[in-house]
């Protein structure tokens, strides 16, 4: 316990600025949630005021609003680190007229993920494993020099990481984590690199009082973010309803297969290829995100694995909750709630999986 105590620091919220500057001094590009005009995006920041520190994201099924308020609580937006590491659309190689394959040069500079959320980090962990042999992803991932996580003292309207165990705090995989307790910030160090950085910025060890407040806040946040039954209970229930067609027809009755859920999900990784050519003999292959809710997904020569939408919706949910576990040993859903917020129909995954628990087939 005392060793862990030594790993907690505190400082004013302004010290986040020092942290950003210290990272930039190392020649690193700092990437975070920020505003572009009035739009919340993820991209390069250079100072504390670039961060969405005075904004609150108000999320509910099918709706997202941003409110400006001093000491706001910002969770996330439509974008996630997936947008930075696993590009939505990219030419992955060209084929010259003498059939030489030329890999596309990737100019992703050494970077820092700053202020991403615990669920984002859990999603990166999933992508790291799923895309283990994807050299495009891995090359970019290797250029992430630091990960600085903001723990959540107040979950958003669609968050349920507490039930999955992927938030609102982090346990590993980060260099520095911080939590905002009013004007004070509690810092947690997760690596040697992180420790060096903290020393440079001049943080002081956290007082018992700050630590107590931190633990209280995080416990409360965990309770609030536990909006569905515990993950293992959900998994068992979904195993039971996996072949109950009626359940899935009902769950997907309002779904229009638009794939917004796939696109915004920080762990959805599927892609499709499109080949292009010009008549000079040059050809190129483009890779782009592709969602399992779309019709063509699951279509193969002459047949279709999941011709009806309820089958594809079922696949989405079972993949997240059952199959990722078998693929990579981690839950595929990190409970971020993006698929709920950004679903134009407002279909609530929490409701669907909660209903599976105790479902009696008709």
């Amino acid at each position, binding site marked *: 316990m005392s060793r862990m105590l030594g790993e907690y620091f505190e400082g004013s919220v302004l010290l986040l600025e020092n942290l950003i500057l210290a990272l930039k001094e190392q020649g690193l590009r700092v990437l975070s949630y920020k505003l572009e005009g009035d739009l919340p995006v993820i991209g390069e920041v250079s100072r504390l005021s670039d961060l969405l520190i005075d904004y609150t994201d108000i999320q509910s099924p099918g709706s997202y609003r941003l409110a400006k308020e001093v000491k706001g609580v910002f969770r996330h937006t439509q974008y996630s680190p997936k947008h930075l590491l696993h590009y939505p659309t990219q030419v992955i190689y060209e084929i010259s007229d003498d059939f030489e394959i030329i890999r596309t040069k990737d100019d992703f500079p050494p970077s820092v993920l700053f202020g991403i959320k615990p669920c984002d980090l859990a999603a990166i962990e999933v992508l790291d494993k799923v895309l283990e042999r994807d050299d495009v992803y891995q090359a970019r991932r290797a250029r992430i020099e630091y990960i600085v996580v903001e723990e959540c003292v107040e979950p958003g309207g669609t968050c349920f990481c507490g039930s999955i165990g992927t938030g609102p705090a982090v346990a590993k995989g980060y260099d520095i984590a911080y939590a905002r307790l009013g004007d004070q910030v509690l810092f947690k160090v997760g690596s040697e690199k992180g420790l060096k950085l903290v020393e440079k910025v001049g943080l002081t060890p956290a007082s018992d009082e700050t630590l107590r407040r931190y633990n209280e806040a995080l416990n409360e946040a965990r309770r609030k973010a536990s909006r569905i039954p515990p993950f293992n209970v959900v998994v068992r229930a979904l195993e039971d309803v996996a072949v109950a067609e009626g359940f899935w027809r009902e769950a997907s*009755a309002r779904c229009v*297969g638009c794939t917004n859920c796939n*696109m915004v999900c920080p762990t959805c990784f599927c892609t499709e290829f499109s080949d292009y050519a010009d008549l000079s003999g040059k050809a190129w292959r483009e890779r782009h995100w592709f969602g399992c809710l779309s019709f*063509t997904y699951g279509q193969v020569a002459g047949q279709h694995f999941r011709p009806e939408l309820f089958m594809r919706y079922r696949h989405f949910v079972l993949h997240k909750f059952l199959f990722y576990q078998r693929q990579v040993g981690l839950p595929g859903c990190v409970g971020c709630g993006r698929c709920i917020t950004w679903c134009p129909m407002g279909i609530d995954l929490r409701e669907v999986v909660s209903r599976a628990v105790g479902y009696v087939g008709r």
Partner: protein
Amino acid sequence: MRKLSVSVLKLTSCSGCLNEVLYSLVARAELLRYLNISYFTELQDSNAIEDVDVAIVEGSIVNSEQEELVKQVREKSRVLIALGTCAVFGGVQSLRAGEDLRTVVLASYPNPDHIKVLPEVKSVDSVVNVDYRFSGCPANGEALARFLVKLVMGGSESPIVESLCSECKRKGILCVTVFDGKPCLGPITLSGCGALCPSFRRGCYGCYGLNALIVDREKLEEFSKVVERLGMSREDFMAMLKAFSYSSLTKSSSSR
């Protein structure tokens, strides 16, 4: 690579799609060298419909002459492409379907006797088999040009059926429905336009046509409630559907 013989047929439409295709072809002189255009009402005088590799059909069918013409062209072509929302779904002229024909004709033409139209508006594939569809009002000329390159090279393309939202999200556009509360038809509309309207922070009005492989009547009803709640009147919604997805509304689509 070999030269492709092409015939281009224009039925009831505004020529906007063909213009888009012409822009794309003019920018690709190298592709034009591989196309032997044997019939194109707007470019040539020839009225003879010959055997061709590729027939491109713009427009919908509103009278029996057009129906005959399309059937002839189908028989004489190896590959038939329906170009634009008129050809694929019926197009804006479908707005008159169900109305009194004489009233409609008189609204635009002083002498209605010259106008030969049937009460129905038909998409090309309700009359003949269509091999490839490039919907859009206007269609994406670049997409067709890229496809023609593949045909010239002896290749082909498998169509990807997805909603506009897929394309919109890949472009990184913040959703106008969820973020701005604006009604947008993207979720039920086929992709292909590059999410043009959402990129200007406006809702899609469905000009690429309904994603009818998924959206059946019940889903359409559910979706209409969402856009209505966001301020689009039912009348406007139905008008957009009729204008850009007519043929798929008249088909009784099965639940996907």
